[in-house]
């Protein structure tokens, strides 16, 4: 509890809202991690281009019991957020269009 507190005061950083991710010891979502990293490389680090994979990774964690199940609205995938992201990726120049593996085939609840 007081473990990092003096450091916290120093750097004025706050602890994560939902605590820690449990480790994916059996590599159950490792495939999606690989896809995501490949996507980030192809998008030159533009997070907006890999949103579907981000969502799929979180969905995978929830499905495997490695994350508390929650609405994607609370994770930055609400309708407003999607619309804003779509507007942004549309406006971003010279970014190769991602192979649109839509997350709709996944459980997105």
């Amino acid at each position, binding site marked *: *509890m*007081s*473990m*990092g*507190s003096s*450091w*916290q005061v120093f*750097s*004025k*950083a*706050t*602890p*994560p*809202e*939902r*605590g*820690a*991710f449990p*480790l*994916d*010891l059996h590599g159950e979502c*490792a495939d999606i*991690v690989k896809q*995501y*990293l490949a996507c*980030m490389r192809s998008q*030159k*680090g*533009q*997070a*907006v281009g890999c949103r579907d994979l*981000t969502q799929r*990774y*979180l969905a995978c964690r929830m499905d495997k019991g490695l*994350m508390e199940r*929650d*609405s994607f*609205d*609370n*994770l*930055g*995938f*609400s309708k*407003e*957020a999607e619309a*804003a*992201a779509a*507007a*942004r990726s549309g406006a971003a120049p010279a970014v190769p269009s991602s192979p649109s593996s839509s997350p709709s085939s996944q459980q997105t609840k």
Partner: protein
Amino acid sequence: MRAERDLNMRSTINYVSAVLLTLLGLSYAAVPLYKMLCSETGLDGTPITSLGHKFEPESMVPVAGARPIRILFDSSVADTMKWKFTPETRQIHVVPGETALAFFQAKNPSDEDIVGISTYSVTPAKAAQYFNKIQCFCFEEQKLAAGEEIDMPVFFYVDPEFAYDPWMSDVKTITLHYTFFKSKYQ
């Protein structure tokens, strides 16, 4: 007269012992009570784990037209720590309000199980208040068996307020640095 004094004496003793017992009970209850208070308010760096404290979904909407920020990821391990620990995503470009995932990779190349715990820092320090981590691998001990290798995710977003803060206008890059230490308890 005497009977009355005895009664007075007895009730005084009863009152005093009741007060003492209550105080004794409270002192035992202090630990769970403080735990509740801290996880409710996030006091003293305790992660806010109680329900009803989720970050608001309204704040996780990418700010239209905002300047993108470059997030750099960096890592180190303490001298006595035998893990290998490297960021898998070197940098990510986000706008305020946009949630994103970053991965670090930890490997235990030694032939013994090692428990590690990490701390992090955000530079520049003035931007740290806007760097919201939704979930990560920090603040808890993580055990890696001998030879085990694992992806460690950080799910974060930069607060939308960042875009409107004039003090942040010169912040183009935010660096997130993690350090893994060997845990004492193993």
